[in-house]
């Protein structure tokens, strides 16, 4: 089983953050939700590991 990586992996963390925020700029809430949904599926498939996805969901769901 692969572990979810939670240490920093991106060479430019600020750029990654801004890329995601920029992608949402100008979208209303509904379209933002659509964008997020598409991104989640694309990235989930790229990860390709159900167990990693499961850990990510658990972490993301904390306090929800």
């Amino acid at each position, binding site marked *: 089983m692969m572990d979810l990586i939670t240490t920093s992996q991106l060479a430019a963390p600020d750029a990654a953050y801004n890329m995601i925020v920029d992608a949402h700029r100008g979208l209303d809430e509904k379209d933002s939700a*659509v964008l997020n949904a598409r991104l989640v599926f694309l990235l989930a498939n790229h990860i390709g590991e159900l167990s990693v996805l499961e850990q990510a969901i658990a972490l993301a769901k904390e306090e929800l």
Partner: protein
Amino acid sequence: MAATEAGGRAAPVNASANAGPGMGTGSRKAFYQFGYARAADQDAFAATGKPPRHPIVVVGAGPVGMTVAIDLAMRGNEVVILDDADRIGEGSRAICFFQRTLEIWDRLGVGKPMVDKGITWQVGKDFLRDDLVYQFDLLPEDGHKMPAFINLQQYYAELYLVERIVELPRIDLRWRNKVSAIDSHADGVRLTIETPDGPYEIEADWLIACDGAKSPLRAMMDLEFKGEVFDDRFLIADVKMTADFPVERWFWFDPPFHAGQSALLQKQPDDIWRIDLQLGPEADPETEQKLENVVPRIEWMLGHSNFELKWVSLYSFQCRRIDRFVHDRVVFCGDSAHEISPFGARGANSGVQDAENLAWKLDFILKGEADTSLMATYDAERSDAADENIGHSTRSTDFIAPKTEMERTLRNAVLHLAARTEFARAMVNSGRLSQSVTYATDFSTPDTEAFSGSAKLGAPVPDATLRTAEGRET
């Protein structure tokens, strides 16, 4: 036997689409009507007050009850089947039957008429609104005697099963014999049966309850039927259309002619097309069934108005199962044991597999080759199968009918990506076609040696060429 006395052959009675009681736009009368005939047991019971005893009594002459009866009779057992009705063809239900089911029916001598009458489609198209998001082509596989599936109206399947029963002297099929009470004990069951001539009683060593999803027998035994009930209603319409139209399965998510819902179009024999329209939980069934509401949607789907509406009805769907399939000498089989929503066409298909699992085991027990504990394996294997089938059809239902706005957003995201990526196409779920369950229970002893063939433990043996002693290939 009743069916024989009704002329030896089932005779078509009526195929009109006139409005009938309680069915909105159209109610079809029974296609095939059989006769009631007084059974010798009725006289015997009246004369002696003692219920005649039978080794096997099957309650319910649906696809599952008839399959289990034929299988047991072909293994040399005497079987009585009781059914409260005397006709088949009322209503539109199953239309899709899969390879495993066809293989079982073939072994029982009814595979050929089913396949000859049935039709297959190869191309399936999934639309999101106006856009084609996904198209698949089910190429026929070589080397199988039976096709991967056929579309065939359930009443034809039932008709061929009745015709097979008429050929088998060991089956005594009694129409208009309604079981109204049972008394189950450790080594048998006593049944009270209502007929046009009044009630009589019989005893059974084994009673097989194939009395459908509403199973009166299950209620008589106070057994729970637990699971999920879906809020959405679906409208099922059968239309006759002889116009040129591609023989393909079309599924719409959020169709332009029916915003926010889903729709399915597929062909059956006799130029009949089946249309499934999801109505959503708020829909008013009365309004939705009105011709002026149904017809324009169908016109949109077909692109013309050159069709004749044959049947319209409303369904709501459940995924539920009984806790244990075997209670002393009462064995539940088919819809009485598990109700499965139709996405993926698993209801009758899995019931026929219950029937085949049960038949050889009961045959062994009746011949003294196994003791009754063998029945525990039926319960374990078919419970697992029911869970698997319910899991599949629940996931399909969730995909087709999202429960929240966010679920809909996620679903539509997959559909959007499906038009662009291969991975998302694999997630599109407009009904996963039924496959035979692979038993992963304790009874499938694990392999100790590596094996490279495609046959799997606990799974049906794939078709293969056999060589006879003389070296001839068959």
